């Protein structure tokens, strides 16, 4: 005789599934993220992560500095601090920014937990769901993740070898205005762009600012790489010529060490007040210990000499990267960055960097698919390659492996006459800190 077993309730393994905010629904593990689990294995040449080469730092000196901070000022370093950040560090940040022509007051600076938190704060205070953020195409994956989490509508504007194209920005802002869309800010990485590696030309900077000003659009200038140029002194920051229309985001993560998680934002008075309040509500205050360690490092070490040594190191690696690309992937094209960490590679026709990633992982090489850098799922024909962390020898080996992967994928595309292109954005997630 057939009988039913006692009915059991189903489970979705998450009793709060129905309780999440709308903005949390796209925060999901994806295949791409899973594939990145192998990236840190030594067998894999990772051309994915934007991790600075910390072996280039005087680690012994830093250890002594941190020891001294705790031994002599431990009760301050380990205590709560100011929501705006330590004044001494804010003054030193002015010295750093002066190298790019920024003349500011310590009160203008808000110290944040990495510039990623600055991005979060800026987005939090400006963006309501559905508001438009204009960003370069492509744009920094970590920024897109923040913007998406606040339910912004991200509109891309194309770039070329000289950075953001003013005519395209003008056209986009005009079109959005005609549609009655409210653009809250333009997000731009003017120097040694992540992922594209290009730099906004000196000639275009005032034009971009003028267009933004005319359309009443705030400019968020994200500049973690500005001091890491290979062939010339840093270009003047956009903030150096526009104090009211530009929010400037800086970071010690690329020029010193990301482990301290110290960044900053420079903002006009009223905005700054809101940023401090927003930051206090999020984290109370940035870490005193990290700020004091960086402050001590800046005051006792030759930090400018250290940045110079990083520039030389990364230039050598950039050369290794573009040399290897020319040798092994002659039918691809790529940007030749004049600073920073990344080159942006256009694959031969028909290839898809996202669908190719499992093959690359099997081939022991990793990169970030171009789709990560677009809000609309495009970019599959590109990939970002980082040269900052692997040695030149490893970079050459990585590109050699990548070429084998590309050739195998090309054969597949020839057979099937197609290549998958992403048709949804649900799995274009943040691939994780290893890929930023």
């Amino acid at each position: 005789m057939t009988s039913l077993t006692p009915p059991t309730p189903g489970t979705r393994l998450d009793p709060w599934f129905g309780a999440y905010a709308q903005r949390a629904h796209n925060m999901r593990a994806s295949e791409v993220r899973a594939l990145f689990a192998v990236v840190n294995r030594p067998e894999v040449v990772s051309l994915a992560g934007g991790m600075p080469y910390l072996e280039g730092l005087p680690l012994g000196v830093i250890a002594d500095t941190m020891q001294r901070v705790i031994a002599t000022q431990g009760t301050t370093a380990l205590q709560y601090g100011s929501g705006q950040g330590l004044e001494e560090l804010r003054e030193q940040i002015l010295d750093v920014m002066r190298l790019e022509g920024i003349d500011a007051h310590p009160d203008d600076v808000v110290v944040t937990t990495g510039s990623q938190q600055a991005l979060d704060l800026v987005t939090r205070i400006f963006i309501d769901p559905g508001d438009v953020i204009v960003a370069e195409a492509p744009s920094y994956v970590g920024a897109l993740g923040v913007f998406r989490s606040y339910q912004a509508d991200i509109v891309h504007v194309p770039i070329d070898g000289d950075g953001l194209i003013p005519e395209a920005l003008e056209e986009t802002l005009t079109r959005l205005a005609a549609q009655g869309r409210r653009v809250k800010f333009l997000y731009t990485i003017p120097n040694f762009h992540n992922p594209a590696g290009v730099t906004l030309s000196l000639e275009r900077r005032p034009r971009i600012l003028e267009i933004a000003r005319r359309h009443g659009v705030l400019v968020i200038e994200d500049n973690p790489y500005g001091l890491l140029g290979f062939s010339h002194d840093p270009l003047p920051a956009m903030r150096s010529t526009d104090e009211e229309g530009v929010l400037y985001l800086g970071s010690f993560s690329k020029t010193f060490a990301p482990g301290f998680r110290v960044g900053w934002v420079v903002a006009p008075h009223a905005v700054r007040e809101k940023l401090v309040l927003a930051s206090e509500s999020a984290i109370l205050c940035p870490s005193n210990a990290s700020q004091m360690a960086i402050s001590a490092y800046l005051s006792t070490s030759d930090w400018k000499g250290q940045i110079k040594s990083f520039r030389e190191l990364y230039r050598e690696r950039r050369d290794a990267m573009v040399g290897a690309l020319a040798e092994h992937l002659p039918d691809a094209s790529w940007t030749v960055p004049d600073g920073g960490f990344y080159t942006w590679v256009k694959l031969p026709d028909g290839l898809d960097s996202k669908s190719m990633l499992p093959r690359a992982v099997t081939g022991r090489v990793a990169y970030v698919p171009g789709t990560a850098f677009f809000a609309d799922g495009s970019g599959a024909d590109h990939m970002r390659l980082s040269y900052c962390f692997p040695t030149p020898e490893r970079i050459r080996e990585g590109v050699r492996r990548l070429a084998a992967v590309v050739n195998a994928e090309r054969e597949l595309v020839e057979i099937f006459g197609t290549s998958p292109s992403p048709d949804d954005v649900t799995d274009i997630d943040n691939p994780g800190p290893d890929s930023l």
Partner: protein
Amino acid sequence: MTHSPRVVVLSGGLSHERDVSLRSGRRVAEALRLAQVEVTVHDVDADLIPMLSDIRPDVVWPILHGASGEDGSIRDVLELLDLAYVGTGPRSSRIAWSKPVAKSVVARAGISTPDYVTLPQSLFRELGAQAVMNAVVAKIGLPLVVKPSRGGSALGVTLVRSIAELPRAMVTCFAYGDVALLERAVTGTEVAVSVIETADGCQALPPVEIVTDGPYDYDARYNPGRTEYFAPARVTAEQAETVARTAIEAHKALGLRHISRTDLILEADGSIQFLEVNVAPGMTETSLFPQAALAGGRELPELYRSIVETARVRQDS
């Protein structure tokens, strides 16, 4: 009285499923520690053989998903080192790891499995992709499922509803391996049946029913929410008995040992279709094996310890 076993859990590895393996390994290790088992978790790297040779654990539990973990090769190494381990031996692992080979073995044992064809990438080049795809669709029909012939976690798997979708599915599949399994898509109640061997013998845990709002793909498996699980499955006692018997038959036909999970479809007419079997089933917080164990009234620490004890006894004998 024997001492509490010293266990090395192997997790990680270099496969596409490294992330899942790491999570599974952590879960099993935590449960074993609660059962007073001394556990070390280790990745598969150049330190592994010296470490195993040095500490000579009582039992090794390879919780490695994907190649090397499930294709038998790590188990070959454990045999070489003469170490007891949880799970199927190398030869049967290799059979189970290959989906088409496993399907043919269980079919010979009288278990139904959906019509399929296994095709290497090179064949599409030699014969022309469109001609081969046309022939496949003519024979198997639509919808069909394209999956790598080896691999797990639904990586590279696509449900194809029209022939126009097939080229893209093939490209996705071949990114994970050179051989594709194209299988008739069967509809019905999807159940996973875990089989364990302990001192009490070989037995099936209650079937777990999987209900998704789309394909049971990576997203549906590892992001809580999209999939609803029913443990035990909402089937009749007779059906539960039948799927349990089928899973045990598959386990035995394939020569599996200690632990396995068989994925089945219970069709509307009551017939059962075998899809695939896993010799190293996922053990994460969202995985089917622990859900089945809990539905069967098992405490994971005790269950995992009893599996370890079984593996140790087998070696001792």
